[in-house]
């Protein structure tokens, strides 16, 4: 009695093998379906209530807006960005140009001027969002989308 073994301490033996099997199956299911959640955010782009779709004017007054034209080069599979006649290659260059142009507009008493993103329909959304992000970095909230930039000459 005094030297009793484990069988006497736990008189009811539980078979844990099915439990382990089930837990294994559950683990495999969750491991296969698992994917890390991507942190998402959003930009408010509320539409103007009273303006509607205004179309693209051919004669754009360069002192009333900052216009970034974007074209899709199908052969090179890349986007070409232009401000005025200047081709902008890097994001840093674009940010500097937007900052300088916007400062000129503010100095010309036009602080409410928008930044217009004038992109071809084929331009990837990622490229447009990059420009929106750069504008937000420069604290510019008034961003307009135009569609139908003519192909580059």
């Amino acid at each position: 009695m005094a030297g009793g073994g484990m069988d006497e301490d736990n008189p009811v033996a539980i078979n844990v093998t099915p439990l382990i099997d089930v837990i294994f199956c559950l683990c495999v299911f969750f491991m296969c379906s698992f994917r890390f959640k991507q942190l998402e955010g959003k930009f408010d782009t509320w539409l103007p209530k009273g303006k509607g779709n205004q179309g693209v004017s051919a004669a754009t007054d360069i002192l009333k807006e900052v216009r970034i034209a974007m074209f899709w080069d199908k052969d090179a599979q890349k986007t070409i960005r232009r401000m005025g006649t200047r081709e902008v290659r890097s994001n840093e260059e674009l940010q500097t140009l937007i900052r300088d142009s916007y400062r000129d507009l503010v100095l010309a008493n036009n602080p409410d001027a928008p930044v217009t993103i004038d992109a071809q329909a084929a331009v990837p959304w990622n490229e447009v969002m990059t420009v929106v992000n750069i504008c937000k970095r420069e604290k510019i909230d008034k961003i307009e989308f135009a569609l139908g930039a003519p192909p580059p000459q």
Partner: protein
Amino acid sequence: MRKRKKAECGEPPMCNLIAMVDIMFLLLLFFMLGADMGRRELAELVLPKADQVKPDDKKENTTDVYTTINVHHKYPEGGFRCAVNEEGGVCRESDHWLYAIRGREYTAADIKPRLDEEAAEAMETEIDPAAGQLLSRRKVLIRADLAAPFGDVNKLIELCGSAKLYKIEVAAAQPPPEEMGK
């Protein structure tokens, strides 16, 4: 004496499974809590990254009426395949890009009635003085894949505007902290 020793050596080796069961339970708990099961309306797509996005505030969303519209490439099913998209290229076939609302897919031609329905479910009670008409108070979150054509996203925004949905938001992914500011 000799007999007794033989009996002890002949006992089958016991494997203690309790530690393994504990670890398995912890693994199971981790995967169950980490699994993202709640938001089935979010389609599988890669969002563009932007470091200036506002974090998605769930508390704010509880009182708002929301519609999420995903703009994604057609999935390879039912014999459909797009070689350009599968190789990571930029597909520009207009009929390969679809809009999806709560798992149901639409094209630019047939999404307008659905947008009208969504707008009608949550109309403002008073005429908006700036617009001169009743507008919808429903917010629309556009989740467009990073390779989606701008023309399609712009068309969707235009359709939302004509359906009196003007509270538009566009989704982007927050880059990890080490990529911030690049």
